[in-house]
């Protein structure tokens, strides 16, 4: 008996040491170092979930981490304002461990707006047979676009997520499923792929209180981790390529039936698909002083012909962030502090096409320009000031409403 205990204790210590070693290395590989050294390192957006700072302890076999996002906001639309608010956007906790050689586990649990929404955003195990062949199973982030994979608050100098990554691709989009991913390195190049089968969306994609086609509305089914609404899997695939000098480009695709088309063996509706195509890029220029990130996403949804055109069959969105580092040196006692200025431009059309009745353009379009000023005491923490100008037209394309928002916020890994 005593022998067994000793054996288990040794195993635990070994595991803890292994974790420490791995996560010490993960820390070296963390965002903080990414920001301060070579941003053209051979890492892809798909690596973002493991490329985070973790806290490790010699005694624990798991590594812990997380981040917070909070801000103040003053916003007004066409002369009407609800005044000033503090907002606790999210608290996210990570936990990871190396279960055995080439077997890793990570989970990410998020509390949004206090405890209004509590979600398991990621909870999966990776079994690496070869760097080119890694099996992943559990709750997986669908690899569609880049922001969905790489959405941690402290990484961004903007407080709001881009509309393309909320209204078009509903970040964080994750679902239960399994699949493969892998990477291939060659000199200055790295290529990666991901392919998963997961549960999909539900009928609310075109039957929701937002009054527009919304993958976000279709992802909120509380049973989604238990039952596939359509009874069929959704496919998500991505290929990405990065060059040390030029940056990264990714192309991703997702398709699945979103509606319930059979019940108790009887057919109750036609099969209707939701399809998403996304392209993303990022690059660093001027010795990493200038960083440009962008993403384009297009959604195509089968909408029944006798349903309302209010729910569009096509929508798209795009954004670009340009961030320039003004100063990077010791400031206010922080050794590697950084002051950035930036601008985000974004455009979303929630309903492409024309009205059958009038052949005039269907509106429901948004655009925004967001200048920002961000101070980073370290690579893992940001204090950011945003001033958002936004315009939005209604379904008929009537004169747009104007919204300006002033925000000051913090986000930090811990």
């Amino acid at each position, binding site marked *: 008996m005593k022998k067994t205990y000793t054996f288990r204790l040794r195993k635990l210590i070994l595991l803890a040491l292994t974790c420490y070693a791995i996560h010490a290395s993960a820390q070296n590989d963390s965002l903080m170092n990414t920001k301060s050294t070579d941003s053209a390192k051979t890492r892809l957006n798909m690596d973002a979930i493991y490329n985070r700072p973790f806290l490790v302890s010699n005694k624990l076999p798991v590594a812990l981490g997380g981040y917070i996002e909070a801000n103040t906001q003053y916003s007004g639309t066409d002369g009407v304002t609800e005044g000033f608010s503090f907002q606790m956007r999210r608290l996210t906790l990570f936990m990871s461990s190396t279960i055995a050689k080439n077997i890793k586990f990570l989970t990410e649990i998020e509390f949004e707006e206090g405890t209004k929404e509590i979600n398991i955003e990621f909870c999966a195990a990776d079994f690496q047979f070869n760097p080119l062949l890694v099996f992943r199973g559990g709750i997986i982030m669908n690899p569609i676009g880049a922001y969905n994979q790489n959405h941690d608050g402290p990484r961004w100098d903007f407080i709001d997520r881009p509309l393309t990554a909320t209204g078009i691709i509903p970040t964080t989009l994750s679902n239960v499923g399994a699949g493969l991913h892998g990477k291939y390195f060659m000199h200055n190049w790295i290529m990666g792929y991901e392919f998963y089968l997961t549960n999909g969306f539900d009928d609310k994609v075109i039957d929701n209180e937002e009054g527009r086609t919304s993958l976000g509305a279709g992802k909120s089914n509380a049973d989604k981790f238990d039952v596939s609404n359509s009874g069929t899997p959704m496919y998500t695939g991505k290929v990405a390529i990065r060059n040390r000098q030029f940056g990264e480009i990714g192309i991703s695709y997702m398709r699945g039936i979103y509606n319930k088309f059979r019940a108790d063996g009887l057919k109750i509706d036609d099969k209707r698909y939701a399809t998403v195509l996304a392209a993303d890029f990022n690059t660093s220029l001027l010795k990493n002083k200038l960083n440009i990130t962008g993403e384009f996403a297009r959604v195509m949804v089968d909408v029944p012909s*006798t349903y309302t055109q209010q729910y569009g069959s096509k929508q798209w969105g795009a954004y670009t962030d340009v961030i320039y580092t003004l100063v990077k040196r010791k400031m206010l006692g922080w050794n590697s502090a950084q002051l950035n200025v930036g601008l985000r431009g974004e455009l979303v059309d929630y309903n492409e096409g024309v009205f059958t009745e009038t052949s005039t353009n269907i509106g429901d379009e948004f655009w925004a320009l967001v200048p920002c000023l961000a101070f980073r005491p370290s690579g893992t923490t940001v204090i950011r000031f945003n001033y958002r100008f936004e315009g939005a037209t209604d379904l008929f394309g009537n004169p747009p409403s104007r*919204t300006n928002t002033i925000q*000051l916020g913090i986000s930090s890994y811990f």
Partner: protein
Amino acid sequence: MILNSLFAQNKKMKNKLAFTGILILFVIIFNACEKFLPSAPEADSVMDAPIDGLTYEQNKLFLEGAEEFDEVYTTETGLGPLFVSTSCGSCHAGDNRGHPFTALTRFGQSDTTGNKFLDFGAPQIQHRALPGFVGETIPNGATSSKFLAPIASGVGFLELVSDEDILAMSDPLDQNGDGISGVPNWNTIPGWVKPFKDAKVKNGKYICRFGRKGATYNLHQQVAGAFNNDMGITTTFLPNNPFNYLTGTQPAPPSEPEITDASVNGVVFYLQTLQAPIQRNMDDEEVMKGKAVFKSIGCENCHKETLKTGPSPLKGLNQVEFHPYTDLLLHDMGAELNDSYTEGSALASEWRTTPLWGLGLSADAQGGKVFLLHDGRAHSISEAIQYHGGEGDKSRKNFTDLTESDRNALIKFLESL
């Protein structure tokens, strides 16, 4: 060494100054936030504000009604299975007039002997349907007419015009010889609609005033009817879902109404307390000239400038004069506007005079273009006037004979409404 130390101190001082400056800037920005926000549009360019004089409690009721008015209904909240639109607000964007996309279709017959198609779900087509259901089409043999949603703003004032005042404007036999013989739409009303205190009754029928053919009695009937016929939502007043003759099905009524009476009453209160559209550039010389032309060519014989509300517990609605440019009566508009569809006592070519208030803001609600008349067939004010026949024929001819200057002034006046 000393110089270096001085430079270092200078640098530190600069840093501190820079950060203090940024801090002060933030403090200034947050203290002057409203200066950085977009300003409100002019009051006369929007229609969604409440009438003056509401109490705090009434303001809250107004806001609750507004929320209900703009709520997008779904399968879960009672939409359909057959419907025309998903919310009140989608038909009356900004409480303004509707767009052809949300036009509804009424069907029936060309005579006034009553609707022969009630077994086919008459009088309204629900051409849209939830996924998995079939939308309706017009049955063989039925006549039909498309109706664009009218302006919602100001309807609380119209509701309070007394029957007596409406009858006073009526001239069925054209005794004054002006070619205008407006009549009210006498129609039966459902048992759950409560008539006004001084309502006039003729053969069990009441003077109705809402809708393109004036077949609806009051806002309560209008709202409950719209929930049911336009959105397929059941209430205690109309507890059955619309019938689909194509499939021969009428989904069983839910055990509870899909929305509460409070929701219906909330929307009614919201509509009753919406401000009336405000005229713009009233003092502009061209506008004043146009107004004189409007009266001189006989437009005002039907499009009455001023009406008066009866008594109301709401201060802003109680016995006040307002300027809707309507007489709330039915008029024969001639062959071109005859859709071969009758409603209540309204003949196929008869239409209730459309209030002209808010006319100049139509483009702001219809996607930058204008779709005028009951079905949006006219794409400009001039074209709409040219469609006037029957009792409006004389005014149309007068309009055609106007000098270019007078015609432009008239259009400018109408655009100011």
